[in-house]
């Protein structure tokens, strides 16, 4: 049992106070007993001296040693007297002591002896010394016996009080506390109440703690659900922020990130990367003639085909109404990019079957390759765009690789036909 535990502390407090009270009582009893005994013994010595006074007076008056001896012997017979002396001026001096050597009895009781025939005349003196050491010892012995029985009388209630408090309070609290300590809040675990106990504060406490545990569990469950909901929503909105809602492809923002990543990666490993820019050729008329619903379905199908056409590590993004880009982060050469682009063009050149409609879309593709056609996002984008417009100008549904000197003004979309190159 730990020293700081309730039961141990209660035990220590009850017994420390019992010991202190008991000790003080015993000391007080012994002190009072000794004082009383001394007082009483003194009284007895006085009475004894009263009893022998007349004989002593006769001895003093007549100078009779025999009587004086009898008186002294009589006095010494008392336990309370350790020394007695009878003397007068005319040579009588009888003294006797129980102890030899040092004087153990400092307290003297003396009285004058008056002549039996003349109250005025003093015929001798009687002195006794009280045996205080013996009286004290006797008092202590007697008080000690009383104190032991009294101590038992004090310790017994102490035990009863300790046991009662332990049974009523400490043990139940210890029981509840140990159970509560093992319970993780929010679980379905509850305290087992004390069986066969009356509805008192401790049982009430157990009930209330259980109620509290219930509330905590409900709250935690609710909170967990809400957290889950928030997480889902967060994921959803994060997806929405970075993806195109219709096709589910990465949007311009996520694409910009991926492009940046691709360039950083390519710079570190001194490898190639390609940016494939494609613009749908005949999409606007679909929207205009067949409606946005059909247009949307076409866009979804395009996204599908694009993803099927590229590898897992490649990124397909929709960056405008009918504009897409494909990032190819790991290519061996320009030719690889061209192959992929051609695959894409072919995929989109196949007719789309939407309901009863058969639709032809097709696309124009421009490619810019890192590091040959630019070593940053802006130049790569610009050059891929330039190449794409070149493809448009070349009659659509074809792939153009950028090259140095390709007319940049074509980006603006109002390039003159005479500046176009192949």
């Amino acid at each position, binding site marked *: 049992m730990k020293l700081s535990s309730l039961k141990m502390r209660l035990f220590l407090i009850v017994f420390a106070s019992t010991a202190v009270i008991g000790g003080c009582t015993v000391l007080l009893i012994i002190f009072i007993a000794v004082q009383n005994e001394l007082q009483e013994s003194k009284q007895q010595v006085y009475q004894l001296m009263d009893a022998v006074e007349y*004989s002593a007076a*006769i001895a003093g*008056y*007549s100078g*009779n040693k*025999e*009587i004086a001896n009898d008186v002294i012997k009589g006095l010494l017979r008392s336990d309370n007297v350790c020394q007695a002396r009878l003397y007068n001026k005319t040579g009588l001096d009888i003294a006797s002591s129980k102890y030899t050597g040092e004087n153990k009895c400092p307290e003297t009781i003396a009285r004058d002896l008056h002549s*039996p*025939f003349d109250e005025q*005349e003093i015929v001798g003196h009687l002195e006794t010394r009280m045996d205080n050491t013996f009286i004290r010892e006797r008092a202590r012995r007697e008080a000690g016996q009383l104190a032991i029985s009294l101590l038992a009388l004090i310790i017994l209630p102490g035990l009863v009080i300790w046991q009662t408090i332990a049974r009523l309070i400490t043990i139940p609290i210890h029981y509840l506390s140990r159970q509560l300590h093992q319970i993780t809040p929010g679980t379905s675990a509850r305290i087992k109440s004390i069986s066969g106990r009356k509805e008192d504060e401790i049982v009430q406490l157990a009930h209330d703690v259980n109620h509290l545990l219930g509330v905590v569990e409900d709250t935690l469950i609710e909170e967990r659900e809400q957290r889950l909901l928030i997480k889902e929503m967060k994921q959803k909105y994060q997806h929405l922020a970075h993806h195109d809602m219709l096709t589910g492809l990465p949007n311009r923002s996520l694409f910009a990130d991926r492009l940046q990543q691709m360039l950083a990666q390519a710079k570190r490993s001194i490898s190639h990367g390609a940016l494939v820019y494609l613009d749908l050729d005949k999409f606007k008329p679909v929207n205009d003639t067949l409606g946005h619903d059909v247009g949307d379905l076409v866009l979804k199908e395009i996204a599908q085909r694009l993803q099927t056409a590229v590898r897992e590590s490649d990124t397909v993004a929709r960056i405008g109404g009918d504009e897409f880009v494909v990032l190819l982060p790991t290519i061996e050469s320009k030719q690889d990019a061209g192959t992929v682009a051609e695959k894409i063009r072919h995929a989109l050149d196949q007719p789309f079957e939407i309901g009863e409609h058969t639709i032809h879309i097709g696309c124009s593709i421009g490619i810019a390759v890192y590091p040959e056609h630019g070593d940053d996002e802006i130049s790569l984008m610009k050059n891929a765009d330039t190449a794409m417009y070149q493809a448009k100008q070349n009659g659509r549904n074809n792939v153009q690789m950028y090259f140095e000197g390709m007319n940049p003004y074509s980006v603006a979309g109002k390039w003159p036909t005479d500046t176009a190159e192949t």
Partner: protein
Amino acid sequence: MMRHILLTCIFLWTGAACAEPGITIIANSNNEMGALTRKQVADIYMGRITSLPNGSIPLPLDYQGDSEVRTRFYQSITGKNMAQINAYWARLSFTGQANPPRRLADKAAVLQVVEKNQDAMGYVDTLVPEAKVAPLLTVE
């Protein structure tokens, strides 16, 4: 006789002597004690004084039985009654070291011893003039 004394007492109303006749303590005419005080008499009779300044041992004499004069004598010199005096002697003589005064039959015997013995002393109610003893002290 009684009537005569009574009459005398009535006539001599102021005379204290008539109320009770005094007791005279007597000694041998050759004694060297001179006048004694009542206390000295008591000390001798109660056995406290056992020797005199000149070295002689005083011989106090007493009467047998608790006679009227004896009672008056002890009452006068010690202030105690006979029972107390007897108790005192009983205690003292038990030790074997002290003895009460010698007790004689009557006044005549006392006078006879006092006349003969130089250390003897006694007491009498009325002192006859023809006795050859020295009066030491008269008490009421």
